[in-house]
């Protein structure tokens, strides 16, 4: 492979790295006054990265780059586009939010770009070392972003908790990687797959698989490794929470899919029960934990745990159809999270302070009908109520589980989604049937309104116009995942 081929294959990484270094100099000389301009430039960089990524969606012939350490296939492209969407929305909404709460730091956008760089490496990783480097690049930037509201004690707490628990999870993951390396003699996913074979697994290799999955389960905040999620989501600045709920989640789930289906793909029986366990526990804990919450960010954190559970059902199926269903679900979930957090950003009282309490939203439908309608659409969609787009993702996932003979898993999942529907509907009830508290005031920047309108339209029944297109893309991406080198 000649150098020009390699340089072209990693064009996205080069673009983002160079842009970060240039913008870092701008930040050093321009200071915090240049923060808004840097955020706009960072969005432009993400658009450029997306333009470079789109041609890969249909799947290139030779997707391996850099000695097979990166696999730039349709799957990586699909996950990367979701990551870019999440990060771009954060960069669009962040300047207005931070300027209201204090000052927008010039470094904020740089850290988001660096996290995106790490996430892009994660989803394309085809080697345990690449996986780990990408994951750490993303995590380290995320720890700083979580504590970036310096005047707020909760933000510092969120950053510290995330850092300590995240480091622990990285350690567990690394332990699993070293065990896997010890018992297979290689870190490349293809090599691991070949070395593990499809026969019975040695005890040491089983430990390796379990530790790797446990470390990754922390990163996707699947139960029983979900404890950090509500605290971090609540404490982190809202634009950062919007990022956490979208881009890193998509990246970590894609990584988990690649590790399980490509690296450990010959040993489905070894990890399937772990994934089934984590899926059911996440659905139940996500549903039950959310019921008592009054803080909307905590509620959305439990909702994300709940949704990760549903996506893991698709992974448990371990079929191309299951992977494709997971990707469709992930795409819809990213749009739902974007819409949900845009509504949360709009909730402010007449002093400009953020409102996070659900009970303060009583009768929002009468004072702010459009905002209330958007939140109701998001809640119905997250609950999977049929006319809305969120139903489609759940339907595909359960369909894949049933056709993979996981009928019991699908049945329990459907039953638990009814519990989840309870708290989503409770929010809608507060919005539409409670006495107006008239606390939410103020207007939103135009950019926020446009993004909110667009995502609410995707979640509305109009979203079904996308099913054929989205399904084809997800199908290509999932097929790339199952294609052996």
């Amino acid at each position, binding site marked *: 492979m000649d150098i020009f081929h390699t340089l072209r294959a990693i064009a996205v990484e080069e673009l983002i790295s160079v842009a970060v270094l240039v913008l870092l100099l701008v930040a050093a000389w321009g200071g915090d006054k240049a923060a808004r301009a840097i955020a706009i430039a960072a969005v432009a960089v993400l658009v450029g990265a997306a333009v470079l990524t789109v041609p890969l969606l249909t799947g290139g012939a030779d997707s391996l780059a850099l000695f097979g350490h990166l696999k730039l296939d349709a799957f990586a492209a699909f996950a990367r586009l979701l990551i870019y969407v999440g990060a771009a929305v954060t960069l669009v909404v962040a300047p207005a939010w931070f300027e209201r709460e204090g000052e927008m730091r010039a470094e904020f956008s740089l850290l988001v770009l*660096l996290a995106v760089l790490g996430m892009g490496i994660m989803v394309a990783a085809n080697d345990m070392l690449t996986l780990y480097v990408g994951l750490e690049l993303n995590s380290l930037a995320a720890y*700083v972003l979580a504590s970036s509201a310096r005047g707020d004690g909760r933000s510092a707490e969120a950053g510290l908790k995330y850092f300590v628990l995240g480091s622990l999870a990285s350690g567990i993951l690394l332990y699993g990687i070293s065990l896997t390396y010890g*018992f297979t003699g290689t870190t490349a996913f293809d090599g691991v797959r070949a070395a593990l074979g499809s026969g019975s697994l040695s005890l040491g290799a089983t430990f390796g698989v379990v530790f790797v999955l446990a470390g990754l389960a922390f990163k996707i905040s699947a139960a029983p490794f979900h404890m950090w999620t509500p605290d971090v989501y609540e404490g982190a600045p809202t634009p950062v929470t919007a990022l956490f709920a979208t881009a890193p989640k998509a990246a970590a789930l894609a990584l988990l899919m690649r590790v399980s289906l490509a690296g450990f793909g010959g040993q489905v029986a070894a990890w399937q029960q772990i994934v089934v366990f984590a899926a059911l526990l996440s659905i139940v804990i996500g549903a039950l934990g959310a019921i008592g919450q009054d803080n909307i960010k905590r509620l959305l954190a439990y909702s994300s745990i709940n949704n990760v559970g549903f996506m893991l059902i698709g992974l448990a199926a371990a079929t191309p159809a299951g992977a494709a269903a997971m990707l469709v679900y992930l795409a819809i979930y990213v749009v739902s999270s974007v819409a949900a957090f845009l509504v949360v950003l709009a909730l402010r009282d007449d002093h400009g302070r953020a409102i996070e309490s659900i009970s303060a939203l009583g009768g929002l439908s009468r004072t702010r009908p459009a905002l209330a309608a958007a939140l109701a659409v998001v809640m119905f969609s997250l609950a999977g109520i049929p006319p809305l787009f969120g139903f489609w993702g759940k339907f595909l996932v359960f369909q894949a589980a049933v056709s993979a003979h996981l009928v019991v898993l699908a049945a329990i999942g459907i039953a638990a989604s009814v519990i989840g529907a309870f708290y989503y509907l409770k929010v809608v009830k507060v919005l539409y049937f409670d006495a107006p508290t008239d606390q939410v005031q103020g207007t939103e920047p135009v950019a926020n309104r446009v993004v909110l309108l667009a995502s609410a339209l995707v979640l509305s029944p109009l979203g079904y116009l996308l099913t054929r297109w989205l399904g084809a893309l997800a199908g290509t991406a999932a097929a790339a995942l199952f294609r052996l080198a």
Partner: protein
Amino acid sequence: MIAAFAFYLFAGVMMTSGLLTIVARNPVHSVLWLILAFFNAAGLMVLTGAEFIAMLLVIVYVGAVAVLFLFVVMMLDIDFSAMRAGFIRNAPLGVLLALVLFGELFLGIVVHSAGNLALGHAASASVTPATVSNTAAIGALLYTRYLFEFEAAGMILLVAMIGAIMLTHRERGDKRGQNAAHQIARRPQDATVNVQPEVGKGVSL
């Protein structure tokens, strides 16, 4: 013969300085003993033929980490006698932990030497030829096969740097930056004044 002598010398000094690291009363002395232990560990690494790790130990641990320790010890106001207060009370727990760790090491070595561990065999690409020194071998791998990871690790360090500055740096109103042009433009006659005070009167400035 000379190798055995060197081994016992390095190992003996390392054990002694390791022990002195934890029993020394003065924390600065502890760090100095630690540096000595690192140097001797590097000597042991050279004896086993791992000269790259030996250099890493000296450069990273002695050069950076130990000096950092020294800075921390000297700059932070830590009452070390208060930290030692619970030593006797917690000693049984420490001994227990040490025994557990020793047991694990022992078991690991026994299992490994019994040969019942079905470890994987490294791919032929990553096996070092006998003719290449390990520094050259690591360099050849690091800058070719693992170049991408190496560069990405550089980006991680950049994140760490940006993050540390972003979280701790604050613009303070009272800071007085250096203005070199102003300093150079200043002439002696602007700054000094010749006076001849009367005896016993002093100078009023």
